[in-house]
């Protein structure tokens, strides 16, 4: 006849086995889920690659025909941006068809990704504009913004403790002192 200790031992063993089986089951499910995810990701990448290839071919064909027509026209470098985008071999985004004014450096040392900035068509401005691109590794925490003179005059005074902000405030202060009288604008 089994003693109390033997019964307890058997009970513990069964419980451990049960836990082990549950753990294995969980691991199996997780593994299957990850495999499924990977499979989906690979499939998606494949589709994306095919789409890009297709776009590249179309863009190259469009660019060829455009360049032939464009030889005699001396267009502004900034406006040509859209044409250059179309010919860009490395770009994956849709080609912009809006006249985006993009002034690019000419004499800077170029890197392999130097070629041009591609603007998503949906994000492209409707009218001619000067396009400013800020975000780069060196200035990660900086953003370019348009602030009105009025807004700058009311800007948080605490920020003035930084010299660059102090300079902005000083400039705006001088402009307001100047009263814009010298701007040729008659303020009533």
């Amino acid at each position, binding site marked *: 006849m089994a003693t109390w200790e033997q019964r307890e031992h058997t009970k513990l063993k069964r419980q451990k086995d049960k836990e082990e089986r549950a753990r294995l089951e969980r691991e199996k499910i997780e593994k299957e889920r990850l495999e499924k995810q990977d499979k989906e990701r690979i499939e998606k990448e494949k589709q994306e690659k095919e789409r890009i290839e297709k776009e590249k071919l179309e863009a190259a064909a469009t660019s060829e025909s455009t360049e032939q*027509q464009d030889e005699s026209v001396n*267009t*502004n470098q*900034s*406006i*040509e941006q*859209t044409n250059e985008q179309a010919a860009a071999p490395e770009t994956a985004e849709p080609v912009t068809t809006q006249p985006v*004014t*993009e*002034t690019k*450096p*000419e004499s*800077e040392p*170029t*890197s392999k*990704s130097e070629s041009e*900035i591609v603007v998503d068509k949906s994000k492209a*401005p409707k009218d*001619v*504009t*000067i*396009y*400013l*691109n*800020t*975000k*780069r590794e060196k200035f990660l925490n*900086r*953003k*370019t*913004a*348009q*602030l*009105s*003179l*009025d807004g*700058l*005059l009311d800007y948080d*005074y*605490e*920020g*003035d*403790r*930084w*010299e*660059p*902000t*102090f*300079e*902005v*405030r*000083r400039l705006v202060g*001088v402009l307001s002192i*100047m009263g*814009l*009288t010298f*701007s*040729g*604008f008659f*303020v009533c």
Partner: protein
Amino acid sequence: MYITPDFAKSVSSWLHTVSLEEPLPLDHHVPFTCDNEFREIIDPVNIEAPALQVDHTRWFAKVALLTGYSADDYDEIMDSEKQKDLTQKLKFIVQRQDRSQLMLLGGEWEPTLDGDGDPAQDATLIPAAIRHAREQIQLDLSPCTRWYRFLEIHYHRVVPNTVPAMVARDITVVFLPSVWDLLPSMDEVSSVTSYF
């Protein structure tokens, strides 16, 4: 207004560059689009800021890009019912860092990169402003034909570990470039748009 401790003096250069006969042409409306998405375009020229030296003067060239006002803005300002002010319509391009810190575009003049010369002269500092703007916002300001020297801000700094205490100078010159020169003509725009 908070004044930074190193601030020494401010020189209103606009008194010599802007006059009633030749006012700032604010009626040139220049629309800007700011794209703050991450894109690495060019390799920046990395230069360590030189250490502050005794009797050393550093020059900084900064630019304030002014948008001007459009015809619609003008109508709104002149409309007494709308009560809009010119200061609400005039806009600047500034850079914002860490929420509240604002800064103008530009940076230090480097003789090796921007050319030697007298830094007190516009012609010497303008290349530095162009170089920095190019690096900071990917914009080439070299086609700007007019550069209004607007303001000079001087700082006097005590050089650390000098007995008796020595003072070094930093001078920031703020320019208002004629950014309207960067916009293409109507002919150029129509020649491009006709392709699409």
